[in-house]
């Protein structure tokens, strides 16, 4: 809404400029002509203000809708751009926050502050590009670029628009896939050098839930992306062989190698929900998704939102939701019953028990309809109960026990802050303590860590490692992990002082311990696997050796072996005297925390309490 203040702010900029322009005009045309000049300037200001008010009065979402009617694909671009703008802003904030956390902005001149801030620009751009690719893949896999979807029932829509009615998507015929859903794979994915990163020869039939298992980097997600009809990897790869899907509701028989497709080939729910939501609001996300699969009503949408526990979030912006809530939104909106194949890539990792039960119900229902569900999950304890087929990819992993160690607590090191969101009467944390924080989606586990970090000046590691990575390449990232190392990297002829040398050795030793020493310095950070990025983002935290390590959903995206390595590193930090606070929904990690003598905190209804206290 345009208010007086907005207009005054506008006048503060434009009025002096108009007066300046009037004075120049008077100088050229002479003082005698002042009534004409005054008229000209008044006309200018009136025209500018009129157009500005018009611009302010039309919400951006209406512009997107207008585009969707006439220029559907650019409409998608515009919608993505509107989704990206707040995310870009947020991403810049995370990077500045990370700089501050790593001690860059203290005791430096304005010039060097500016130079340091400018150095995060390439990493910020690369992360934004990665996010844009994710959004593009989401658009592609959901068939949103297909013109038929956007232009159906135009006449009916015009009538509804003219009569001021809700515009319904009645023009779309409901889709049904056939009874004989089959997915045949006989293919190999190769890197440019010819090295194979996945050989798949399977025949998967509808009416089954297939659990894909294998270590990180063995090609599980690539295979799912390939079936979803999107670019299989962030690296250039070549795919040799055949893949065939039968029973598709629109295309019938699909040869996957003849893509890219306008239509959605499968229902793909990827990792990282905050990077795959398209719309700028919960309601819009839902309406974009539902218009693809057939007629829908407002009531149906509301019921689905209620089932997934998102009813109260209807008017929220997706970026204001927690990771778990964003995952629920993606599942509620995009689990499309019309698609024969559902591909769930770590879709349950952010979900609490209630959310997982809801997902389990949906998956079992789809199996009963004759659909095929392929699940990738590293914490497979939850899925083993309902999976019909288990497939292992890559080297079979031995069942990994998480390394446990009992450490006698030392002196007091801190307490979580008391705030309006959480009240507690907890005992203080001691050095060597292990704390596991649990709670339903949206209760504020991440907020707790963020506020704690801000109030006690402690570093913390968010779920998404990209929020703590600053460089575009591994070399840039390593340089930006400490101000002294960064200073060294700026020197043309580095003269090593003792402090820089010690830091370099510490960094190299930690890289070796975290299994990162093999990484090439020129590799773009976003080419690394989730596990590698997570370990790389943990490195500066370990270098600082803080009194309390705050880690959000440490197990996200990691296979058992990688997670075991990380937990062993955490145990070492505890031995050195750091307390560790971890959030997780995983039952496996709960068991690990108990074996390690850890304390379990639970957030419920704004109250943070210790379980069993």
């Amino acid at each position, binding site marked *: 809404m345009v208010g007086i203040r907005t207009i005054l702010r506008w006048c503060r900029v434009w009025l002096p400029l108009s007066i300046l322009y009037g004075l*120049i005009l008077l100088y050229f045309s002479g003082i005698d002509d002042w009534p004409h000049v005054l008229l000209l300037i008044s006309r200018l200001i009136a025209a*500018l203000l009129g*157009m500005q008010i018009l611009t302010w009065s039309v919400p951006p979402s209406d512009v997107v809708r207008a585009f969707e009617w006439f220029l559907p694909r650019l409409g998608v671009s515009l919608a993505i751009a509107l989704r990206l703008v707040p995310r870009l802003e947020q991403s810049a904030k995370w990077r500045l926050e990370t700089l501050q956390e790593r001690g860059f902005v203290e005791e430096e001149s304005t010039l060097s502050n500016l130079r340091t801030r400018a150095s995060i620009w390439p990493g910020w*751009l690369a992360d934004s590009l990665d996010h844009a690719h994710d959004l*593009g893949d989401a658009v592609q896999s959901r068939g949103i670029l297909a013109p038929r979807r956007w232009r159906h029932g135009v006449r009916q829509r015009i009538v509804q628009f003219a009569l001021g009615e809700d515009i319904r998507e009645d023009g779309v015929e409901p889709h049904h896939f056939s009874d004989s859903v089959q997915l045949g794979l006989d293919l190999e994915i190769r890197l440019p050098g010819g090295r194979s990163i996945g050989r798949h020869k399977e025949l998967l039939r509808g009416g089954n839930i297939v659990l894909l298992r294998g270590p990180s980097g063995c090609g599980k997600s690539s295979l799912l992306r390939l079936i979803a009809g999107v670019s299989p990897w962030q690296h250039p790869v070549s795919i040799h062989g055949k893949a065939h899907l039968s029973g598709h509701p629109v295309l019938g028989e699909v040869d996957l190698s003849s893509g890219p497709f306008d239509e959605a080939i499968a229902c793909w729910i990827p990792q990282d929900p905050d990077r795959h939501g398209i719309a700028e609001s919960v309601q819009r996300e839902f309406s974009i998704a539902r218009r693809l699969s057939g007629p829908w009503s407002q009531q149906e949408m509301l019921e689905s939102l209620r089932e997934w526990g998102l009813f109260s979030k209807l008017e929220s912006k997706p970026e204001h939701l927690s990771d778990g809530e964003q995952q629920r939104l993606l599942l509620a909106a995009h689990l499309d019953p019309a698609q024969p194949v559902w591909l769930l890539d770590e879709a349950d990792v952010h979900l609490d028990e209630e959310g997982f039960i809801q997902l389990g119900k949906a998956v079992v229902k789809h199996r009963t309809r004759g659909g095929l569900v392929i699940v990738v999950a590293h914490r497979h304890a939850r899925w083993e109960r309902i999976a019909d087929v288990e497939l292992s990819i890559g080297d079979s992993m031995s069942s990994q026990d998480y390394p446990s160690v009992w450490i006698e607590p030392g002196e007091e090191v801190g307490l979580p802050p008391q705030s309006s969101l959480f009240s507690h009467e907890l005992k203080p944390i001691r050095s060597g303590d292990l704390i596991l924080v649990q709670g339903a989606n949206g209760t504020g586990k991440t907020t707790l860590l963020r506020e704690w970090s801000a109030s006690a000046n402690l570093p913390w590691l968010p779920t998404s490692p990209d929020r703590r990575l600053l460089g575009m390449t591994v070399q840039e990232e390593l340089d930006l992990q400490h101000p002294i190392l960064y200073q060294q990297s700026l020197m043309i002829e580095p003269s090593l002082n003792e402090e820089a040398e010690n830091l370099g050795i510490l960094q190299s030793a930690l890289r070796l311990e975290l299994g990162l020493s093999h990484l090439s310095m020129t590799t773009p950070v976003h080419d690394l696997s989730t596990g590698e990025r997570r370990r790389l983002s943990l490195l500066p935290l370990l270098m600082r050796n803080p009194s309390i390590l705050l880690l959000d959903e440490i197990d996200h995206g990691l296979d058992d072996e990688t997670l075991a390595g990380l937990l062993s590193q955490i145990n070492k930090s505890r031995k050195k005297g750091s307390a560790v606070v971890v959030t997780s929904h995983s039952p496996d990690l709960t068991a690990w925390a108990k074996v390690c003598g850890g304390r379990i905190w639970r957030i419920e209804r704004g109250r943070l309490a210790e379980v069993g206290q």
Partner: protein
Amino acid sequence: MNWESFQAWAMTPGGIAVWLTLLCGLFFGSLLVSVDRKIRLGREAALIALLAAVASASRVLFAALPNVQPVTLFILMIGLHLGARRATAVAMLTALLSNMALGHGPWTFYQAIAWAAVGTSSAVLRPLLVNWDGTKVRILPMAILAFVWGFLFDWMVSLSALAIYQSFEAFITFIIAGLVFDAMHAVGNVLFTVWLAPSLHQLLWLHRRHEAGRWYPDLPMDTIEMEARMADSKAEAHRQENPLAGIERLDGGE
């Protein structure tokens, strides 16, 4: 109203403003339609969206500095790497998006068309702007082109002033009054070229590399060459000496 009087009106400042704006509007619309039909891949739609979002955000971010903003350089780089048509798409969306915050008007058309011309110019002059194998941007020619476009772009956009003032004298005064701002735009473009062009070049190269990840039986030659270069540097990293080699651990571990 007969044909002669219509012709006479068309040559007045008001008439020129009307037909110029109509013409630009039509051109703008047809460009949008052609760009819309061109988009086939989700990643393409998303890349256009990202570049438009970054360009718009940077334009709004630098709004406090009069006429200093990196959009012109962005569009130059996009034209250079992705061609004139994608640069046009980004130009259209940037004008639309950034003016949602800064204010729409007849200048929106002119800005979009001027930026489309900027992108086309760098696409045409590509051989002058990159080195022999296309791996690096030549900063000097790029800075000169950006400097020239600082003035040209503003003069093209100033044509929208005719629609508002409807007087040749006022329009000329407008151009003269804006010379200082045009110079600021040109100098700003040069500074942004020195600062941002290398990282933008790297970003767009990254996109082209990712774009190659499709169902190809054989990868394009340039992709294979680029990957071979990266593999070489990876092997070099393996050869680097382990910093802990030779240090004996006190706990007896390896």
